[in-house]
């Protein structure tokens, strides 16, 4: 399976949602589309699924343009943010729905899927009788039932409690590996995107601002937007500098004083101001107490840590 999106364009009225967006996904990969609200990420997913029609462009799935097909004839499957489980059907029938439409229903296949998502034995429950995490897994099993080559996931973890999110994310990753399905996940959460995906595409204003492995887009942001969107990067002139790449000590090259210290759990994020008035954010390991607010510090960093930014 390979998905290649070519020059996709979509406007709602006078407002463009996607601007000549092109994107290529390698087979059997886990790709995250990361963007804020209004970035066009949901529109992109809905166009691939067929719920919205693009004004221009092609969606090539294994060499075939699926853009003219109605949703039901597209080989991809979608997992909805609201899960969209059929409230009047049992868990078993929810998962069987796609199989029945295709005429390939087998009770054994449904039970196999329930086992795959760790819900064996819950066949006869109604969606309303399940917890949020269980509903999420039924939605996943339903989407995977027909072994789609491409699974679209719309904010799959957004509706879960923070505590469940990490475990469920790892579960998604395991399922992606086990099924060999290409996962295309839309999210606004950078931690989620960086932590789960093989490739991250950052969307900004209807375009792909950067596409690359998580480590690369984090360490080498291509644009100022990417640098700021992924972590609290400092922008110095035409360069980005990560807060964790700044050293703080008695010796250093840049004198500054501490304005504020914010506790982040694993780190302290210090807001400092240098002698020439530049604001810099500095991350410190949370083991030791931070320097008091107002105190003078010396900052230093490697020139190699300064990442040059594109437009």
């Amino acid at each position, binding site marked *: 399976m390979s998905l290649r999106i070519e020059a996709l364009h979509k406007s709602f009225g006078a407002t463009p949602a996607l601007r000549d967006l092109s994107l290529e996904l390698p087979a059997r990969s886990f790709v995250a589309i990361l963007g804020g609200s209004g970035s066009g990420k949901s529109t992109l997913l809905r166009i691939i*699924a*067929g*719920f919205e029609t693009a004004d221009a462009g092609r969606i090539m799935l294994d060499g075939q343009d699926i853009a003219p097909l*109605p*949703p*039901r004839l*597209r080989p991809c*499957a*979608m997992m*909805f*943010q*609201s899960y*969209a*489980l*059929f*409230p*009047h059907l049992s868990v078993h029938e929810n998962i069987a*729905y*796609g199989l029945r*439409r*295709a005429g390939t229903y087998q009770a054994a296949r449904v039970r196999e899927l329930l086992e795959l998502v760790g819900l064996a034995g819950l066949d006869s429950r109604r969606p309303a009788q399940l917890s949020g995490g269980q509903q999420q897994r039924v939605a996943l099993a*339903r*989407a995977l*039932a*027909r072994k789609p080559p491409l699974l679209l996931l719309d904010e799959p973890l957004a509706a879960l409690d923070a505590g469940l999110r990490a475990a469920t994310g790892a579960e998604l990753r395991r399922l992606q590996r086990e099924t060999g399905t290409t996962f295309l996940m839309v999210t606004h959460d950078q931690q989620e995107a960086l932590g789960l995906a093989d490739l991250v595409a950052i969307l900004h204003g209807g375009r792909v601002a950067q596409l690359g492995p998580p480590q690369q887009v984090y360490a080498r942001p291509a644009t100022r937007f990417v640098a700021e969107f992924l972590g609290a990067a400092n922008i110095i002139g035409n360069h980005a500098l990560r807060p964790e790449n700044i050293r703080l000590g008695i010796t250093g090259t840049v004198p500054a004083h501490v304005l504020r210290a914010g506790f982040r759990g694993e780190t302290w994020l210090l807001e400092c101001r240098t002698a020439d008035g530049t604001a810099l954010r500095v991350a410190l390991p949370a083991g030791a107490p931070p320097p008091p607010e107002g105190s003078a510090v010396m900052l230093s960093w490697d020139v190699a840590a300064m990442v040059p930014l594109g437009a």
Partner: protein
Amino acid sequence: MIRAGAVAWLALLVAAPLLLVLVIAFAVPDEGLPPFRLPWASEAPNESWALLTADAFFLSALARSVLLAAVTALLCVGLSYPMALGILRAQPRLRAWLLGLCVLPFAIGFVLRMGAWIGLLRDSGLVNRLLIELGLASEAWQMLYAWPALLAGMLHSYLPFALLPLYAALAARDPALEEAAADLGASPFTAFCTVTLPASAAAAGAAFLLVFIPAVGEFVVPELLGPPEALLAGRAIWQEFFQSRDWPLAAAASVALLGVLLAPIILWQRLERR
């Protein structure tokens, strides 16, 4: 306080009239005002219940009423689905206007609306004149005082009772449900039958009952548009009350009608709880 008020309200406006009707149903008809004697003040036995089932007159009127109400309610619900789904597909700004257009005729008096049907359907009415002008008919086609005219009037009178609850239920549904069905390979028709319809079944049941219950007792529309031979329960009760002045019989028929109406309500509540 509020609870006591509600109980008093129900007792005054629901229980008391009902009790009155029930008592009259067991009374004996008499000359004078009111034209009956209370059951304990009369030596003659109450005959209204025996009369009710003595011949097929009331029972067939009741059966016709139930059938007409069921057909009306079914057609109202059937028409409401495409209307509600169509309105919901429109731009959000337009929806209130479209819904308003559906309900607007009800700002006009009921009798005027029925009068409009008479104007349309009578022998020298608009439709017949048009048919003759266009050469599609050589003489007037008798449309008024027939079952189709009656049904048209019933639908026109009761449609909002089905449309509004169904619209509210369909507006509150997750639009992703139908998208999920399409995504899983369902055609629009299959998605409607397997998802939209069953997921809104409770609202459809409510809409059906909201039309069915008042429609069973309807007697103005059949009077104005229906065939003369179509004796319905409402008209039968009216005749007993105002023409024969047999109040106990009319009251007994009313109680029987109420009994018939309780059955679907209880059934529906059972289904709802499930």
